[in-house]
């Protein structure tokens, strides 16, 4: 065998190839190892996260590669009144969720049921609950008649997962299932909703809360009670069963987690509990100032993050939850009782008011009722003292409507419905089941003043006169003040 120079020359490509493999091979192999932030246990998911200044949050989390958080161990689970927490599977350390956008039949309160759209048969959709550092894979199936997408409101993630149909992804066609995958690096309060034809699809109820907890093994450092409430508004004409999403001013049903008072499920806390309430607002057009009775709280977080220095927070009794934002309030439940909390826009605590009627407050209809009853049996003049006439039972009403239906409590009607609920704080309860109405300790209730009291304190009360003609401009106020309980 002759080894000529010519034969060596033929070997060069082979040698070159071997050198290349030796030079770069190990690196290529390393690309498939656990240390690579773009894969997890060999499953390529997210694209490579290049080094950047400032560093991207998810990239940091990816380098930490936290295992899935567990309720109880890592965090106190959030409570969604009238709702549920989303189910998930853990597949190779990734929390896998399945959301289905579909038509939903929703009962807003007994007597009012609507056909609308929601996630997994619910409005709002199930609360997605995670621990900081969790990696999630969310499958979204579209069973709506329209295209859709899901936007993760407030979540810091790669743009391709942002869920804006047309801008960051093609729309999810009816029948298709898309996959979203990203990491939640930090604790926070977020929301999810479509970003295709938002006016219609958000308006129809495709909404949901996301609660991401800090991993905190020390229970005493966690809140004792953590609630998630999604605020929403609807225009549902009494007698219809379909929300009118084109409405932009006259909304007549305002819900907390898809329900109105009296169907809102009370929040329960033990005396001394540290309570968090997370409010999200995906109403179309209205902000909601949520007022809590009995407490001054601080707003410790939003959908953007947490207050850095909680000692400098301004105490409030009303938190304004703007459209498209979430607020987290914190207080210590040191005041026992049944505490109302509600949107303080007074129209938002009325169910399905009509606006086509004349102003009846202060009108003296004596004698006219009888005349009208001859023509219309069962007729009754209403509204002369405000809305308390609607608390009268037994009047036939249009089907599928709850005109000004209100909460009925142990002392009677409050004439309050809509975006309202009750926080029950009890001493010595062993479970967080609804404990029923508060048993007011004797002497702590406001009741009619006794004659002895009046005399002792020198309070003179003459019999109230009937509003005379010259007091016509005050008659409205008489209607609302006065001795009515």
């Amino acid at each position, binding site marked *: 065998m002759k080894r000529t120079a010519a034969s060596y020359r033929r070997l060069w490509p082979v040698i070159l190839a071997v050198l290349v493999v030796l030079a770069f091979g190990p690196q290529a192999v390393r690309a498939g190892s656990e240390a690579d932030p773009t894969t997890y246990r060999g499953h390529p998911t997210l694209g490579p996260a290049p080094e950047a200044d400032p560093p991207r949050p998810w990239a940091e989390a990816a380098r930490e590669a936290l295992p899935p958080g567990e309720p109880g161990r890592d965090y106190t689970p959030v409570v969604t009144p009238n709702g549920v927490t989303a189910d998930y599977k853990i597949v190779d350390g990734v929390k896998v969720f399945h959301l289905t956008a579909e038509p939903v039949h929703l009962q807003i309160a007994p007597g009012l049921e609507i056909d609308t759209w929601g996630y997994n048969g619910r409005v709002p959709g199930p609360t997605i609950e995670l621990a900081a550092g969790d990696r999630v894979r969310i499958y979204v199936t579209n069973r709506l008649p329209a295209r859709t997408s899901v936007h993760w409101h407030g979540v810091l993630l790669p743009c391709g997962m942002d869920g804006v149909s047309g801008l960051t992804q093609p729309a999810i066609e009816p029948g298709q299932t898309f996959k979203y995958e990203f990491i939640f690096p930090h604790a926070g309060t977020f929301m999810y909703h479509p970003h295709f034809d938002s006016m219609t699809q958000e308006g129809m109820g495709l909404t949901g809360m996301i609660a991401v907890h800090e991993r905190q093994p020390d229970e005493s450092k966690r809140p004792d009670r953590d609630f998630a409430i999604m605020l929403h508004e609807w225009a549902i004409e*009494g*007698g219809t069963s379909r929300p009118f999403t084109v409405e932009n001013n006259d909304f007549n049903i305002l819900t907390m987690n898809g329900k109105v008072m009296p169907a809102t499920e009370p929040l329960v806390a033990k005396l001394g509990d540290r309570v968090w309430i997370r409010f999200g607002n995906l109403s179309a057009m209205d902000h909601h100032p949520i007022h809590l009775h009995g407490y001054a709280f601080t707003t410790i977080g939003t959908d953007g993050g947490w207050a850095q220095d909680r000692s400098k927070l301004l105490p409030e009794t009303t938190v304004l939850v703007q459209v498209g934002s979430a607020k987290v309030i914190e207080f210590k439940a040191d005041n026992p009782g049944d505490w109302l909390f509600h949107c303080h826009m007074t129209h938002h605590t009325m169910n*399905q*008011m*009509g606006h*086509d*009627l*004349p*102003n*009846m*407050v*202060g*009108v*003296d*209809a004596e*004698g*006219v009722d009888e*005349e*009208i009853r*001859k*023509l*219309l049996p*069962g*007729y009754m*003049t*209403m*509204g002369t003292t405000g*809305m308390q*006439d*609607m608390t009268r039972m037994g*009047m*036939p*009403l*249009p089907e599928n*409507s709850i*005109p*000004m239906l209100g909460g009925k409590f142990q002392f009677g009607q409050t004439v309050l419905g809509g975006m309202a609920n009750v926080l029950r704080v009890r001493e010595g309860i062993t479970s967080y089941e609804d404990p029923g109405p508060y048993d007011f300790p004797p002497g702590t209730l406001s009741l009619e003043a006794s004659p002895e009291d009046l005399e002792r304190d020198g309070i003179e009360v003459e019999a109230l006169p009937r509003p005379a*003609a010259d007091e*016509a*401009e005050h*008659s409205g106020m008489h209607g609302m003040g006065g001795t009515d309980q």
Partner: protein
Amino acid sequence: MTGSRTAFVAVCLLALFGTGCASVSTEATWEDVQSDVAQRTGRSVQWNQGTEADRAAVEAVNGLLQGGLTAEEAVQVALVNNRTLQGTYENLGVAQADLVQAGLLRNPVFEGAFRFVRDNGQAYDLGVTQDFLDVLLIPMRKKVARARLEGTKLRVTAAVIDLASEVRIAFVRAQAAQQALAMRRTAMDAARASHQMAQRLRAAGNITALELSLQRELYETSKLNVQAEETTVLETRERLNMLLGLWGEHTEWRIEGALPPVPTPEMNADDVERKAIANSLDLAMAWEGLRAAAAEMGVRMAETVSPELAVGLEAEGEDPGTWEVGPALALPIPLFDQGRAASARAKARMRGLWNDYTQQAVHVRSAARTARYRLLAARQRAIYYRDVVLPLRRRILRQTHLRYNAMFLGVFQLLQAKQLELAARRRYIDELANYWIARVELETLLQGRMVEGDGAGMGPETAPTGMEMMGGGH
């Protein structure tokens, strides 16, 4: 002399027997009319001639007027009490007398002449002349008079049917007006209640002066509507008073009940053209007119078929007849006037009368089709109102009331919905009235008379077309 006396007696005897036994009594004729009316309408008629039976009939009428009056009772009252109708019956006496007259020879004429003769003598010329030609004309005259009597009987029957039909229609109108007035009064109550409520709202400072004025306007307009309806009620009542021949305290009658609903099953409306032609008094009167004119002009009506006759006669059931002109009587010596002019005139006149007759038949057929259609259409509308429109309006009112209870809308909208419901009920009353009027019109047509226009009708005093054909007076 004996010969002339014998001749005289012979003439007298001839005169006596030549006339036939015609009586001036109208009893038989009246019975014919009564049975014709009964057969066409099922009603019995009474000719007030001051007898005991007549006085009893008048008292029965007073009895009817005391209680609530129904449509049938109103007709009964009219048949007894309407003086024009009673007057029409007297035409029978007139025609009967004419018949008798036609059969009588002209009275002999007594002539006397006194002549003065030159040679101291006087002479008398006395003579009795008898128009012998008359005798030969009697059969023709009798034929004419008989035809005219038949025509008069038909005319009287027609007058009865006309009156009954007018009374029924007037009654429906009066009943409907009364019900409409009740609706208008209720509508006024609703408008008043609405206005009162507006006044209370204004007193409380809750509505504007403009809104109050608008409510008041609705109320005042409703008062005007009530007054208009009251006027209609009065007018319809007065029409009935006139038809029933009532005045004074007898006008205090009241109507029993409401307009009856559309009946089930509907009256038989099959084959109306044929039945209308068969029963048509107008056609029968026209036929008698033709007969009288033919007899008068010495025209014999022969029996041949002509296409023109098919229009009226095949339904008529009579033998189709045409006429031919021929010499009827040849007594006048046709020396200069051979009758050609007369026969030409007769032909022309008969053709004219025949055209009128045919057109009358066309009219009757068209009226039959129209009356049938109107009845069925009116029935459909009334039923539609009863079964669709009124229940829908009630449903709308109920839904409005429910929304009022829910405070989705206010009392003014509720009362407005009530007003619309009352308006629908008023329209239903109109449709029901239209149905019953259409029904009277069809029934009258099948009894033999056409009701003209909107059923304002022809009174007994209005001459039917047949009369005009009877040429001149009788």
